[in-house]
């Protein structure tokens, strides 16, 4: 057997008070995809950062294609042939895609001038070579990119000549199922070209679909190396959490109650003639591709984006929602997709963030003490089991799952009649995900009307009572829970299925 391409031997890393990795050994052969799974905090990011040169290991050794890179800095790690595709890539908003791809490594002409033509040509060549033609324009500015396109830029960055090992960190969290397929095709191609791939993901179905071997981490310790062909989700989850987990979540059928939200013939810059209805206690799932206008629909209903025609009725009454404050006054809650950019005030405390939607209600003559806020939202935060050292902790310092729980706590405290959740479990670990599902289910059982936008098919199918699919700003007819299958939703999203009459959902 030849020496592995990437050889990690007994690597350990500690931080004050925490052992992040202990004696981790892992080998990636040329032409192999090794998946790395584990809950948040299991040590996956620490390992990736050691490989990328961001962290120094305390003990052990890392060899890349025979060379010792145990103590490489980020530049040396790149030169040795390691590239990391980050989950949330840094994109410079005001320069082009081509410049973003080559940032820091611009090709030069004579006199040291940047060779823009070569850069564009190379980006186009890579796009067509890896099957992404038409998904990205080399001249588009960073600002105009969708999350999926942003991710593609990050992938193009990694595919520099001389790359030997590519690590993907949660690569599919902003992708639709169609885009995931393209990503997988890319990974298979890289594998066939003899690269070593490390694939980090919470999504076990994807891990099972793409990897050759699966390495499971728990609390910095390796708890299993599994051959993908000979294992299944149950075993992986058991090794990840050390307990059986009901990951297939199913809701009971709901009884029909009064209609809470009634949208009729809504049009906007992003939509044409959208109609839908949600009853009390019902969860309406909205499927579709990224960019189909789902997030925009949520924002139009919430008053954050303008509508051009149509009516929105709440509990049978016409509303005139022109700003988020109107929506909140009308008892609507909205947890946006990108919680860091739009959901949370990262530099402020857990309490302040959770109390944001109820501030006015809690105040007496405009006065609002921290103690009043704590008394109001503290129980909700405890009930959601937000893991935080104190309620005064800055929200930016919590983990992804806990941040999402703070956003949910905000709306729980406000007690809306309609709650809109845009990708509620994006970048949330398995354990927190199950908790969030249970919470959404309970809120519906208590009579809240809920709209869930999700690109994760199992999530959409498990949570929704009915599913509507958005494609190019139009909604499909609703698909009842009984009739909903992954194939049917995908077909509607892609427009390959005949959509029966566009009756109001």
């Amino acid at each position, binding site marked *: 057997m030849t020496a592995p391409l990437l050889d990690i031997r007994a690597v350990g890393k500690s931080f004050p008070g925490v052992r992040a990795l202990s004696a981790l050994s892992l080998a990636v052969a040329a032409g192999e995809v090794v998946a790395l799974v584990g809950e*948040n905090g299991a040590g996956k990011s620490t390992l990736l950062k050691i490989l990328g040169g961001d962290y120094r290991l305390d003990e052990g050794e890392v060899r890349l294609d025979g060379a010792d890179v145990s103590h490489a800095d980020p530049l040396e790690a790149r030169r040795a042939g390691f590239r990391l595709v980050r989950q949330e890539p840094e994109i410079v908003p005001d320069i082009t895609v081509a410049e973003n791809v080559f940032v820091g490594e611009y090709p030069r002409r004579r006199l040291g001038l940047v060779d823009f033509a070569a850069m564009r040509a190379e980006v186009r060549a890579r796009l067509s070579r890896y099957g992404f033609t038409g998904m990205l324009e080399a001249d588009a500015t960073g600002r105009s990119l969708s999350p999926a396109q942003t991710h593609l830029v990050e992938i193009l960055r990694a595919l520099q000549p001389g790359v030997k090992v590519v690590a993907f960190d949660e690569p599919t969290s902003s992708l639709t199922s169609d885009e995931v397929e393209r990503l997988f095709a890319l990974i298979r191609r890289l594998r066939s070209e003899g690269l070593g791939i490390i694939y980090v993901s919470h999504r076990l179905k994807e891990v099972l679909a793409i990897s050759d071997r699966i390495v499971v981490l728990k609390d910095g310790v390796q708890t299993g190396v599994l051959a993908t062909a000979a294992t299944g989700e149950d075993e992986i989850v058991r090794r990840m959490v050390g307990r059986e987990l009901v990951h297939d979540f199913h809701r009971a059928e709901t009884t029909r109650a009064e209609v809470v939200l009634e949208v009729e013939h809504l049009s906007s810059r992003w939509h044409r003639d959208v109609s839908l209805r949600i009853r009390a206690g019902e969860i309406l799932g909205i499927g579709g591709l990224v960019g189909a206008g789902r997030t925009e629909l949520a924002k139009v209903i919430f008053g954050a984006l303008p509508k051009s025609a149509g009516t929105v009725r709440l509990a049978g009454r016409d509303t005139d929602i022109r700003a*988020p404050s109107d929506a909140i006054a009308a008892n609507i809650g909205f947890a946006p997709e990108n919680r860091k*950019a739009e959901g949370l005030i990262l530099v402020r405390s857990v309490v302040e963030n959770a109390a944001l939607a109820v501030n006015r209600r809690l105040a007496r003559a405009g006065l609002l003490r921290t103690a009043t806020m704590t008394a109001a939202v503290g129980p909700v935060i405890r009930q959601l089991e937000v893991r935080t050292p104190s309620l005064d902790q800055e929200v930016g310092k919590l983990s992804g799952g806990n941040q999402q729980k703070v956003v949910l706590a905000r709306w729980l405290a406000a007690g809306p009649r309609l709650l809109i959740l845009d990708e509620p479990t994006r970048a949330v670990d398995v354990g927190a995900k199950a908790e969030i599902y249970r919470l959404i289910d309970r809120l519906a059982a208590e009579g809240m009307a809920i709209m869930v936008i999700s690109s994760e098919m199992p999530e959409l199918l498990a949570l929704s009572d009915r599913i509507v699919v958005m494609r190019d700003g139009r909604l499909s007819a609703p698909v009842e829970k009984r009739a909903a299958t992954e194939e049917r939703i995908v077909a509607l999203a892609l427009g390959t299925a005949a959509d029966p009459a566009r009756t109001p959902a």
Partner: protein
Amino acid sequence: MTVSAPAAAAPLRRLLRFIGPENLSLIIALVLLVAVIASQTEFFFSARNLFNIGQNMAVVGLVAVGMTMVIVSAGLDISVGSIAGCASVVCALIVSQAGSVPGGILGGVAIGLLLGLVNALIINYLRVNAVVATLATFSAFRGIAFLIAPEGRPVGVLNESFALLGSGRFLQIGGFPGIPVAFAILVGVALAGHVVMSSTVFGRQVYSMGGNPAAARLAGINLNRMRLWIYAISGGLSGLAGVIVTARTSSGQPASGTQGLELEAITAVFLGGALLAGGKGTVMGTMLAVLLLAVLSNGMNLLGIPTFYQLVAKGLLLVLAVAIGQWRMAASERRQARITAAGGGV
């Protein structure tokens, strides 16, 4: 999970909590500075000198309270000194020509509010960045101050009761020189500002919009309306500062006495722990910084250090303050990175 500190805290701890633990380094710096100055000159602790420090803080302090609000909301108001200049002239004209002291005070504050609103309108509806907008009005408002002053010259005000606002004192007992009226006004305004920022819905919303405007908007906060209030308050307090300058110098000054106020106020707010990015900063921190700056300049005067050096020292102090803030933030981020990398849940 731990929730808030025990109710029966020792008085010292309660005082610290009132001032804010994040301001501890400012207090230490102040104590050190006082120790150095007092070791060089006995006069520092004399009642008359302390009186002077209190008197000198008032004008900058008033402007800095408003500036705290502006900077916490992720804005900036460079026009405060020019607003104070306008207010000074307007106030002097009213007091000297209509003979009404309350009218003059109200007029000065009102013109400040109005000009603050102009700033907010430019930022909101012409979509001009706050720095650029108030840089423009910094120039324009100063011009207006000269235009409304007859022939562009200072307007004399001879009114004894009005002068008390600038140089009056109370509680003058025996050798105790009393408390300057202007300082008392500052204390009142600062306490009000502290309550507004820490314990009102409005204050919470200022922090929220500064920390993340997009999230604040989605949480139902009307950013434009908030800005109208914030810049009006900053303008109104600058107007009040202008009124006090008028009372102190017995003249409405279009420029003298209010030039460079923006620099001093902004310095104090950053020194007091606010972030340029917004979302952080307290009135208490700003006030400690104003005191620190006043003591610094007073001390250097006492030690006979020329004004030019003082300007250099203030500039250095600002750089130092922001650098320390950055360093502390980076350190905390490093700590955090370790914790998240290692433990996930904090």
